[in-house]
């Protein structure tokens, strides 16, 4: 705990050193049950457990409030999980008003909640609107029952439609998560899921290929028949721009002005205050993770206010290369001026040389001011990044 305490102090003072705006990530670790491909921290929720968790979260918020300098305020906020909709609407009202009272939030802040179709209700929407939530990101994954069953998701296609429809009707800017590369999935069914999402009025789509990482149930026994992702991704890159959704990041498409400002903060390595068990944050060139068990989080928060379990300092060339990779996720890419101001001219030169030498010309655009990936470059981004990391 002593170590947690000094680590939390360190992160707190990094927060204190900020003068401008920052982002806040809050982890709600409860799930109905864990999906077989998920490697995030989550636990089944039991009554009373979430109540206790919210109390701890408040304590953690108070701990960091004490560090906050004058003039710094949250410009984006994101509630992720887990399944944030496992909290009741009443709990939400309580949590959001507490946050509003204790953390300065910019009037134009983007505040997003992740919602899962099986637990999202209109009453959640009411509570969120009251608490200044502007954006809802729904874990749809697919509009086909077959796919959802295969993935072991606790919702079906009609629940997914209802959830998106409700969120749109209640006035939120809605994003849908969709997954490809599933067993038995066809390009036709994928196209149909994407089209359905657009018809229902989403303004943002996050699409990603099923990946089976360490720490998930499928890691030891991966399912067979997973489709190769190329055609799905390629088709999406062709189709979505025609519907006005531009690809502003490897996995993200949105209508103009509807990109996720919170996620963009990650890719620009802007400061993020992470709160809650298992949450990640990034402050003062330090990436940190909170305790990943409810018990660990509880005892740490009770004894020292914060719960930082692990800090990784990323600096120098490592930071610069990480930044280049992250920036190249986005359509804005690397701005030469900004980049060399923050990370230095030399490393920028080396990265540009490597790409010119080793990457095909049609994988990136290079202008006088900056460098970014083409749609083709985005498809083979891993290979490009591994050149410059």
């Amino acid at each position, binding site marked *: 705990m002593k170590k947690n305490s000094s680590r939390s102090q360190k992160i707190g003072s990094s927060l204190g050193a900020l003068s401008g705006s920052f982002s806040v990530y809050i982890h709600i670790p409860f799930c109905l049950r864990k999906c077989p491909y998920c490697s995030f921290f989550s636990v089944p929720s039991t009554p009373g457990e979430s109540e206790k968790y919210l109390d701890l979260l408040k304590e953690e918020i108070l701990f960091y409030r004490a560090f906050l300098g004058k003039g710094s305020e949250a410009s984006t906020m994101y509630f992720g999980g887990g399944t944030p909709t496992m909290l009741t609407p009443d709990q939400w009202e309580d949590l959001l008003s507490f946050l509003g009272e204790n953390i300065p939030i910019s009037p134009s802040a983007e505040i997003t909640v992740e919602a899962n179709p099986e637990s999202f209700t209109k009453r959640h929407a009411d509570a969120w609107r009251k608490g200044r939530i502007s954006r809802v990101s729904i874990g749809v994954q697919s509009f086909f029952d077959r796919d959802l069953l295969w993935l072991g998701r606790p919702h079906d296609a009609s629940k997914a439609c209802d959830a998106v429809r409700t969120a749109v009707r209640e006035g939120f800017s809605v994003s849908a998560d969709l997954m490809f590369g599933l067993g038995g999935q066809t390009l036709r069914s994928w196209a149909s899921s994407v089209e359905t999402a657009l018809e229902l009025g989403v303004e943002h789509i996050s699409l*990603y290929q099923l990946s089976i990482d360490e720490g998930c149930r499928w890691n030891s026994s991966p399912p067979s028949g997973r489709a190769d*992702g190329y055609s799905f991704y390629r088709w999406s890159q062709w189709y979505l721009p025609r519907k006005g959704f531009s690809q502003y990041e490897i996995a993200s498409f949105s209508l103009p002005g509807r990109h996720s400002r919170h996620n963009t903060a990650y890719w620009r390595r802007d400061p993020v205050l992470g709160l809650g068990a298992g949450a990640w944050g990034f402050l003062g060139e330090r*990436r940190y*993770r909170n305790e990943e068990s409810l018990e660990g989080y509880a005892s740490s928060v009770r004894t020292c206010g914060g719960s930082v379990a692990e800090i990784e300092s990323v600096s120098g060339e*490592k930071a610069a290369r*990480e930044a280049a990779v992250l920036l190249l996720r986005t359509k804005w890419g690397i701005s030469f001026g900004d980049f060399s101001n923050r990370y230095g001219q030399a490393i920028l030169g080396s990265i540009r040389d490597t790409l010119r030498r*080793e990457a095909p010309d049609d994988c990136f655009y290079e202008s006088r001011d900056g460098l970014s990936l083409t749609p083709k470059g985005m498809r083979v*981004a891993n290979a490009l990044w*591994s050149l410059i*990391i």
Partner: protein
Amino acid sequence: MEQQYIRNFCIIAHIDHGKSTLADRLLESTSTIGLRDMKQQILDSLDLERERGITIKLVPVKMNYTAKDGREYVLNLIDTPGHVDFGYEVSRSLAACEGALLVVDATQGVEAQTLANAYMAVDQGLEIIPVINKIDLPSSRPDYVIREIEDVVGLDCDHVILASAKEGRGIGDILERVVEKVPAPVGDREAPLQAMIFDSVYDNYKGVICYIRVINGRIRPGQTIRFMATGGVFPVEEVGVFRPGFQPCDELAAGEVGYVVSNIKTVAEAHTGDTITDNGRPAASPLPGYRKVKPVVFCGFYPVERDEYPQLRDALEKLTLNDSSINFEPETSVALGFGFRCGFLGLLHMDVSKERLRREFGVELVATAPNVVYEVVSKDGEVIEAHRPSDFPEIGDIQEVREPVIKISLFVPTEYVGKVMKLCQDKRGTYVSMDYLAPDRVRLVYELPLAEFIIDFHDKLKSQTRGYASLDYEFIGLKAADLVRVDVLVSGEAADAFSFICHRDSAYHRGQAAVRKLKELIPSQLFEVPIQASIGKKVIVRQNVKALRKDVLAKCYGGDISRKRKLLEKQKEGKKRMKQIGRVSIPQEAFLAFLQVEEDEEK
């Protein structure tokens, strides 16, 4: 023991014709070894030999036998290695004997190798006693086999022994016949010492133990001896006989078979076939027939884990303590790192050595495809010994390429003659002769490039004749051939690890196979990668590895960032370990798979 009561003999037999079982029975019935101590087939002492049913190392044994004439005899059985790779060793074993049992399977008839060894024994003037074994089997055809022995080997079979080693039948007859027929040795025990080494082994405690047959004179501890071929001089520490373990004795005199220990450190100092003489009173000349065996088949041995190079070196050194016919020298491969180029007497010798390294020394290794040594004559008359494709000069500078050629005898049931002839022709064989051994068996003789033989000849022969063919070969020298070096270019740059030598006529097919294989093995890159096979500057085959289509797994938020960075860093590290040819990264595994690939271009 007086020479007139000594009989030195060996057994000539084909694999599986029951040599080891027969030897076991002989030991049993002369009570040389108690039944209780009897491990099955005691003479094949290496595990590996027992498993494969073949004998590589000779283990001689001395038996005492009281014959029907009431006298006690000493019978020395000298086993012979049962594989074509060891022709010279067989000849030395035969030279240590006055007689041989020719054991033929009553169901199979004479096989190629048996015949070759039988001829060798006849040439060396040995008394040959034919034995038809396995007469207990219902499918046995002794009459037929007797006729074959008479026709093919040219032996008089009036007194052939019908035996079943398995059931112990005919064993008594064999022992009697050996006493009766095999001539007693006739050396001069008072002449200067001449003892022939017919094998040597390394022992951790005693050093090198030479197995000898004393031809003339005597050898005893305390004597100073000289090895006439190598010139080494050593004091004799111990002499003894095989019971079948080592049993020291006072002396070995002309006619006797035994061993000598004399403080020799490596078997390379005690060549098979060398003559041991007394240093103070040397013989006028060495015994005839000595030659130094030269490896003919080469391959690279590399440790699977790169840092196990020293272990591999130690293991090879230990292996060669026991087998001086293996040679090895350090070699570096772009793909495999540090390893050794090793020479062997043949393919089986190579396989067995590899297996022994694994089993006896616990070394996991990668073996590259075997190759032969070529002689290249350049335009200015220089002769180059080319061990690997990179030793070849540019095609324009080559006057002539010579390759090792073997003469191969194949015993084939008539129904498979067509297939075997086709196989030999496909392998660039030159027909020499064909004759009928029996109405349904043919002996085919071809001259064949050794390089073609070592690729997959055995496997193909086996599968095309369902295992009914047998073969023997001898090395006959170097012959000029239209051979070319085929280079493989990856993205326009030559990758010398992939070059190979082949006949001009098969260059296209082999090039095609190599390019196709590489196309499968080289992962997609950011660029399309052309893979070409060429002879000199002329490209003969081309295929492309398509450019990478997709290599990205989407989402990356919060904590994913560190994980993702580490993953990329790992990829970058992995790429550093890959071999770069131009902009193309080729993983180690691709090299391994390519170098180990059995030539399967015709499939």
